[in-house]
């Protein structure tokens, strides 16, 4: 805080005049973006470095399900921070770094040791170390605050973080760790990948699994320790988890995941320090966490592959597709029942075929027309009485799809009876489901196995490629020239 006040005489002035809340936010934004002040420069650089190291290690934390371990680690470094401070009697970055690293590693050793020698479960072991170490840290901190050098120390910034209080030495240290993290990921890319996802396999191909675990652990500790001052002890685990989890929603490849998670980490750090700067140097940590979480929320809902909205849209599309296909299949079957003497079917016949009301059949027919699979010949009135006699004819695309679906259905039935030895009266239900998902390749394969059959087990003809061709004749529908044709 003091550092900031020295850096911004104008800010002190503003405080004197009308209270800090009167600061113009656009002016503050300009000041932040122009990077004129040393404190802002440090905060920005620090956020970038923090985003890189936390983002990279976070990818492995999420992949290895170490999220809660990261939380424990971040709490366990507190006594080390306090002791480093006590030893150097100033906010010496190196002393704090050494102290915090030792405390963090000691914490992980104690967790492992408790797990090894007692029946205490993992979650309790983590909780014991988390709260026990943290309590020791709190005791030492409260003692330091009583001491002579404790007041102007800024040691309380370690709890919730203050990016603007970063000194250039702090930033230098963060930069070193970020470069180290980048080096580590490029050098040990393969080893880290394989140990993260399949330890047994990694061991079998001679990857030093234990060594990699310690490398990761030490790196993780470094990342947590250097990020402490920017985000604070309590929330640093969020910087490890949230950007990586966001990236995990967007990609399936580890390389892309690490890249995205680094980007989200950096962006979260920058937005967070900007937000805290706007609010006159409120604690930085919470703002960074909220920025990261907002990315996560966006990815959670709008992610292209795993997003909730995208999944919902895909599901709705599939449901629509299946309903189209069922209507077209019904139209085909009605035509087939009339030995293909007519080129269109009445909606009434369609409704009877599918055992539904005329209104429902009419609605489905309309949907089909909208999607371009059919055209409908009818009067302008709606209602069951008029829909009954409306005539639906398939467009070439519709005819082709209908033939494909019927072909899929009958081929599958034949396959089940001939090859899988199902009874002929047990195959329909199964074919009803699979007809919508059979791909071109599988159909060709089925044809080969069944030796290009012509008839299904119930004696109906399987529409062949020629039948699909025949659809071209249907398209020259005389009705399309008349005014009765219902426009798509």
């Amino acid at each position, binding site marked *: 805080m003091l550092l900031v006040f020295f850096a911004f005489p104008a800010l002190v002035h503003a405080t004197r005049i009308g209270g800090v809340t009167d600061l113009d936010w656009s002016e503050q934004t300009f000041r932040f973006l122009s990077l004129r002040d040393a404190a802002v420069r440090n905060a920005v650089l620090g956020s970038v470095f923090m985003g890189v190291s936390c983002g990279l290690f976070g990818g492995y934390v999420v992949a290895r399900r170490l999220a809660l371990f990261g939380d424990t680690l971040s709490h366990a470094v507190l006594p080390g921070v306090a002791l480093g401070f006590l030893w150097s009697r100033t906010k010496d970055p190196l002393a704090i770094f050494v102290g915090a690293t030792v405390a963090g590693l000691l914490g992980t050793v104690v967790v492992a040791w408790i797990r090894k020698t007692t029946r205490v479960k993992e*979650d*309790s072991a983590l909780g*014991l170390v988390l709260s026990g170490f943290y*309590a020791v840290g*709190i005791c030492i901190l409260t003692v330091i605050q009583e001491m002579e050098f404790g007041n102007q120390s800024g040691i309380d910034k370690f709890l919730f973080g203050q990016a603007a209080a970063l000194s250039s030495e702090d930033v230098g240290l963060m930069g070193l760790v970020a470069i180290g993290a980048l080096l580590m990921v490029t050098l040990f890319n393969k080893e880290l990948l394989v140990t993260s996802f399949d330890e047994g396999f990694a061991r079998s191909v001679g990857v030093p699994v234990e060594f990699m675990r310690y490398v990761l652990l030490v790196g993780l500790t470094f990342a947590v320790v250097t990020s402490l001052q920017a985000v604070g002890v309590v929330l640093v685990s*969020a910087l*490890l988890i949230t950007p990586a989890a966001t990236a*995990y929603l967007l990609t399936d490849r580890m390389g892309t995941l690490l890249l995205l998670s680094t980007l989200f980490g950096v962006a979260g750090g920058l937005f967070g320090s900007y937000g805290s700067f706007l609010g006159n140097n409120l604690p930085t*940590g919470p703002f960074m966490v*909220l920025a990261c979480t907002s990315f996560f929320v966006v990815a959670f809902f709008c992610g292209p592959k795993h997003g909730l909205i995208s999944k919902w849209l895909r599901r709705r599309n599939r449901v629509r597709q299946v309903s189209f296909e069922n209507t077209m299949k019904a139209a085909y079957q009605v035509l087939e029942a009339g030995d293909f003497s007519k080129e269109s079917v009445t909606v009434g016949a369609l409704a009877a075929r599918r055992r539904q009301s005329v209104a429902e059949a009419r609605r489905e027919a309309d949907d089909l027309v909208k999607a371009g699979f059919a055209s409908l010949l009818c009067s302008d009135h709606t209602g069951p009485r008029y829909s009954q006699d409306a005539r639906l004819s398939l467009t070439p695309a519709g005819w082709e799809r209908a033939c494909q679906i019927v072909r899929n259905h009958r081929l599958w039935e034949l396959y089940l009876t001939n090859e899988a030895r199902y009874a002929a009266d047990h195959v329909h239900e199964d074919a009803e489901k699979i007809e919508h998902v059979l791909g071109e390749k599988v159909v060709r394969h089925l044809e080969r196995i069944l030796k290009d059959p012509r008839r299904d087990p119930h004696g109906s003809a399987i529409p062949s490629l020629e039948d699909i061709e025949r659809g071209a004749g249907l398209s020259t529908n005389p009705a399309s020239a008349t005014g009765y044709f219902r426009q798509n």
Partner: protein
Amino acid sequence: MREEFFPTFDYGSVFVDPWLSDIESTFQVVLMGFFVCLACGVIGNFVVARRLALVGDAISHSLLPGIAIAFVFTSSRSLPAMLIGATVAGVLTTVLIELIHRKSRVKPDAAIGIVFTTLFAVGVVIISIWLDNVHLDADCVLYGEIGLVPLRESFILGGTNFGPLPIATMGTVALLDIVLVVVFYRVLLVTSFDVGLARSLGMHVNAAHYGLMIALALTIVAAFEAVGVVLVVAMLIFPAVTASFFYERLPALLLGVAPLSLAYALGGFHLAKWLDCSIAGAIVVTAGILFVLAWVFGPKGGLFWQWSLSFSCQGGAKSIAKAGS
């Protein structure tokens, strides 16, 4: 201003003086500590048995925005408002964690991490924007102010003074927890250790789970201002784990909470008196020391015990080998 970290240890000033010169506030602080440890320890036994220790941690963090919003609205430490806020926040936490890990491919541990850090951040932002220096200090959220308890207004009912309000509240909550555990002991026991059996006996497993979670939220809220959000987790876990080095059966573990709580409260108070540091922190440090002692010397699975067992086994094997030869 103090110079050295460890003040010279003076038996009289650390152990005797507080009980002579300032007996009332000493007694009140120790009593508060005892109640906090007791309430948390009783609930904590079930939390540990159900492997929910870190969920407890997450919930204790994420209650903060609920408490803070209640503060903003009532501008006082009104317990019912804080309780409502905290319960809403607690339910929100569980719902959000479930939502994230059911509806996306994020693993449950990461989901817990995301939810509690976010809610905690919201709480800290609310406190530092609207409440700082007014009612609630952001640092106090982390380690509590048990030492200030005797200064709080008294709870007077029907002309009788029940002491400072937080103590009366905490005592009531502790009593409530104990009564709940005694009344629902069988259900809690079976649902904690064998969900399948509980279902087959027709017990409401989910009701038991949520009941326990609500009791947990209530306890955390009451303990919140005394020990803060992080240290309350220690109070949940330490008694259960420490006692498990002496007893294996749940009733014994539950009974063990009382003497441990007394030891934590007294030890923590005097440690803080000596070092002049945060009392809540010192209580947890005491708990940690007792845990380490139990871990080393405990008769059920302690290190010393394991070592002597392996030693005697080796000895026995040798003597058998000798007798055979």
